[in-house]
């Protein structure tokens, strides 16, 4: 945690004291701060101050672990707690609501020296953040598939679509969907140790995977998708017309299966609105 240029109000005694107090919470109790404590013994001052330090780090590390259960499972509880400590010193939370906590954790993991050997870890964090954001995203009713089924094909082709506000996608050069799935069993087995039989799939690192996350109603759904479908959905998200999105996708992916992809988009309830463009 770093000090920054003082604001207009920061010249007050309370502001100076809160600055000293905050910096000490992230570091250690200073003699200057301790002088103001009514407790007389050095041990009492240090240990009572530590109650605040422990409360803050325990609650932040717990909240971060709840947000990133797979990252936590991959690195182990103790390592995760240590990592959280370094992370919060480097990036103190910017918002009071825990729902916004840990938004740059993936960026931190990309540069954190002790996790460099786990190349996929930051992408797993990105996927878990996508799930979290999807869970808390605005509600919107998906478009009923019949509406699209009854549209004239030419009109549909010239229309653009609005996709669900809970939609997120993550692309990785590692098999993040498989890694995420394999860890679910491990996380749940921690709670129910009677289930020892492993259903885990073999993971080949370096195999790229794209994941789509969406919550059409209240359950967060996750799909492992082909790169072509991933690109197609990105084109749609950027408000290309359906015809242009197909054309742009086919440029890069000759194997792109249009019918199957549209069916996938309807089944997963990604579309919330169709913007029909009227030709002159």
């Amino acid at each position, binding site marked *: *945690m770093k*000090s*920054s240029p003082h*604001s207009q*109000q*920061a010249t*007050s*005694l*309370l*502001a100076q*004291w*809160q*600055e000293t*107090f*905050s910096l000490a*919470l992230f570091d250690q109790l200073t003699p200057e701060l301790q*002088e*103001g*404590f*009514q*407790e007389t*013994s050095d*041990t*009492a*001052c240090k*240990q*009572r*101050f530590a*109650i*605040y330090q422990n*409360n*803050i780090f325990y*609650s*932040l590390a717990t*909240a971060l672990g709840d947000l990133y259960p797979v990252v936590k499972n991959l690195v182990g509880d103790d390592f995760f707690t240590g990592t959280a400590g370094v992370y919060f010193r480097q990036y*103190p*939370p*910017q*918002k*009071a*609501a*825990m*729902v*916004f906590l840990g938004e740059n954790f993936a960026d931190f993991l990309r540069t954190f020296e002790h996790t460099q050997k786990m190349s996929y870890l930051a992408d797993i964090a990105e996927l878990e953040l996508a799930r979290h954001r999807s*869970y*808390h*995203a*605005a*509600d919107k009713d998906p478009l009923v598939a019949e509406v699209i089924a009854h549209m004239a094909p030419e009109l549909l082709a010239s229309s653009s679509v609005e996709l669900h*506000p*809970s939609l997120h996608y993550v692309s990785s050069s590692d098999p993040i969907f498989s890694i995420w799935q394999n860890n679910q069993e491990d996380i749940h087995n921690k709670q129910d140790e009677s289930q020892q039989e492993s259903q885990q799939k073999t993971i080949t690192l370096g195999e790229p995977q794209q994941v789509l996350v969406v*919550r059409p109603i*209240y359950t967060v759904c996750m799909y492992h998708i082909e790169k072509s479908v991933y690109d197609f959905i990105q084109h749609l998200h950027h408000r290309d017309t359906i015809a242009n999105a197909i054309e742009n996708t086919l440029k890069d992916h000759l194997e792109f299966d249009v019918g199957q992809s549209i069916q996938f988009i309807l089944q997963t309830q990604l579309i919330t609105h169709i913007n029909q463009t009227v030709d002159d």
Partner: protein
Amino acid sequence: MLKNILDTMKKDTLHGVGIGLKAQHYDDILATKPPLDWLEIHPENYMGAGGLPHKYLREICEHYPLSMHGVGLSLGSADGVSDEHLTALTTVVKRYQPAQVSEHLSWSHWNQHFLNDLLPLPYNQESLQIVVSNVHKVQDALQQAIYIENPSAYLGFHQSDMSETDFLHALVKQTNCGLLLDINNVYVSANNQHYSPKEYLDHYPLHAVGEIHLAGHASEVIDNDVVLIDDHGSPVIDDVWALFSYALQKMTDNNLLSPPTLIEWDTDIPELSVLVNEADKARKIQKITTQNPVKGKDNYRGTSE
């Protein structure tokens, strides 16, 4: 002013005993509709745009009056209340129209860094003016009076030149805010700073109390001294129940209504029935201390000016 009063009257008025609403109890509450008079949430947990938390809260609000108890405003911060957080709070308050909104006499941010704890303040004229200014800002934004809770403290400061109760008297006078009396915090702070919790209550501005909190706490020994930790992770202890009775008796003696009371439990959360039983216990004490209601009672129902 008149509009504010009318708006306040339109809302449900809290009475009796409620519990803090926890996500793990959503389904159980909707399935069993336990005999609770109201429920309290931390608005910060509903600052996301949508999804299941809001779905559950909407349904639960159809059956129970709601109170919002904030933890993120940082009313004691010298660098002021965060505009972004206040806007988010205003949005949640407008969305659910809670019967009342409360916050803490504490600070949790400095230089836009949120420390996720309710940190104690030194009590003096400077800190008073900062809290007064922050409370005014919040009440103006929410267009209603808020209720301020006394904190639990593990440290006292030489920078303080007034007592917590004098500070609260002045705060109420200058902002017309209400108070949330946390009996467990009184007990914890009194033990940790070596004063009498009853004497604290004797000096406390009881006329301004619009809500009471009860909770459990933990303890540890530091330097041969028992230090109590406000962890909300166990039943209310007998001494705190006794202090609750003492506070209610004083209010009854002073012709004040018994305020709506909350059972808080935030760590190691047990099954719903445990909280419902704690609420029953609180309700029985409320009934015993208010057996002979006196006419003309009026507990605090403030509105911002």
